[in-house]
């Protein structure tokens, strides 16, 4: 039952930690003045009137960074258990890990060669 106990702590922690940022917001909600007007609530863009839709087209570079990050993140699902068990394993495990990382490094090298990592 120790496992559940540990996570009960995390659960209570989450509940308490949730209250901590909300509390100042509530206090502020009680004390702060409320005098909104249309001009005040307008979007601020460096003193110039807002033009067009906010959701402007973004460049695909952001997606590519997110993509490479996702692939490396998933790789960690395997690398963390591998690293964790590493000192009980033999050289075969090192070889498997080497091959695993090498295959992924390949993808990184490809992206590099294709200039996909370039911030343009």
């Amino acid at each position, binding site marked *: 039952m120790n496992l559940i106990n540990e996570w009960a702590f995390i659960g209570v922690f989450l509940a308490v930690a949730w209250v901590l940022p909300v509390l100042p917001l509530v206090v502020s909600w009680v004390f702060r003045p409320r005098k909104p007007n249309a001009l005040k609530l307008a979007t601020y863009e460096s003193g110039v009137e807002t033009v067009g839709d906010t959701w402007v087209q973004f460049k695909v570079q952001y997606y590519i960074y997110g993509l490479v990050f996702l692939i490396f993140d998933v790789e960690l699902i395997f690398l963390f258990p591998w690293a964790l068990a590493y000192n009980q394993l033999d050289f075969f495990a090192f070889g498997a890990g080497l091959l695993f990382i090498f295959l992924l490094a390949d993808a*990184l090298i490809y992206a590099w060669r294709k200039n996909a990592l370039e911030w343009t």
Partner: protein
Amino acid sequence: MEQCINVIETLAPCLVASGTDPGLAQFISILLGVLLVTIFPLGGVIIFIWIERKIAARVQDRVGPNRVGPYGLFQNVADALKLITKEDITPAAADRLIYNFAPIVATLSVIMIWAVIPFSPVHIGVDLSIGVLYFVAIGSIGTLAFMMAGWASNNKYALLGAFRVVAQLVSYEIPMVLALLVPVLIAGTLSMQEMVQAQLGMWFVVMMPLSALIFYISNLAETGRAPFDLLEAESELVAGYNIEYSGMKFGLFMASEFIHAFTANALFVVIFMGGWAGPGVEQFPALGFVYFLGKTMLIYIPSLILRATVPRVRIDQMMNFNWKFLVPLSIINVLVMAFLFKVAQVLSLTPPPGLETDFIANLPLTAVLLAGNIVMIIGVLTVLRNTGRRERLEAEARRADDVRAPAPTMGR
């Protein structure tokens, strides 16, 4: 006797002994532990901001806050009171629910990390078996908060700022986690407390300075500290993702940023500098607090001086530095360290069972790993120097071309 593992288990038996219902006793002890642990970062933030302002002021030859309270210590309390009583402006175009949730999520993601940070051999919120992975996972929720803030503000600058922040954070998370793999590999554990215990013989910063350096640099970027403070590039993005925030919501973003900076350094201390380890800690666990905070200050204060002195990098430089330098380097680092560790194990250079905490017994392993690190560092410096020279020459050549450009080229 009860083994003292964490706050829960030291308090609950006492309550049960004095006649409380076991379930209730457990709940009370958990709640108390939670309060103790959460109050630390929140109370600390007042001090962190004060330290930061004082140091920034010293660097810039100013005095810094000195009016409110002794040495201006209560300046931040006054600031917080001001923020609370400020009018809160929610732009009319904003997506209200997400807009209001974003600062809460940002703060939450930082405070939650403190649940697994060991303060001393017996004082830790909870020693999860996956502690290292836990704080990486919680840290990634922070990324989401920036995205929510930028998107919900419905402002081009905020959204652009949020996109840049997220791109920066996700990029630098890769070298950070790859650098973390090496301590996990050597210590063979993901639990924070065992990570500290694995360093009783030798700090990991000595065994693997390169991993420590990569972790430190990517932590700077993760917390948005100079020179990577593009998160709040006032000059380029009119403050970035939190431009539309005001009042206490803005205050929460600021507070979470300051807590995060300190937290990142605390994590560095736990994983690479032995956490609470120090002489006399076995007899007096409370000494662990002192060592832990002392070590954290030891690397926190240089990071503040760094923040006050270095200029901001350009975003393309930052991204190139990460993808073309840090990520390949950390991959090579993991492989080399894994290989050397296995070799050391086969040659039985690792400390024999029962002597893991002994300084002398750790020396052979340390020597092997350190030698590998030094070779890698020399290689890295060579590469850096050559690349730097090439880029400088290229830039100078380009400049010369620009100067000469208007005139028609002679000959050839």
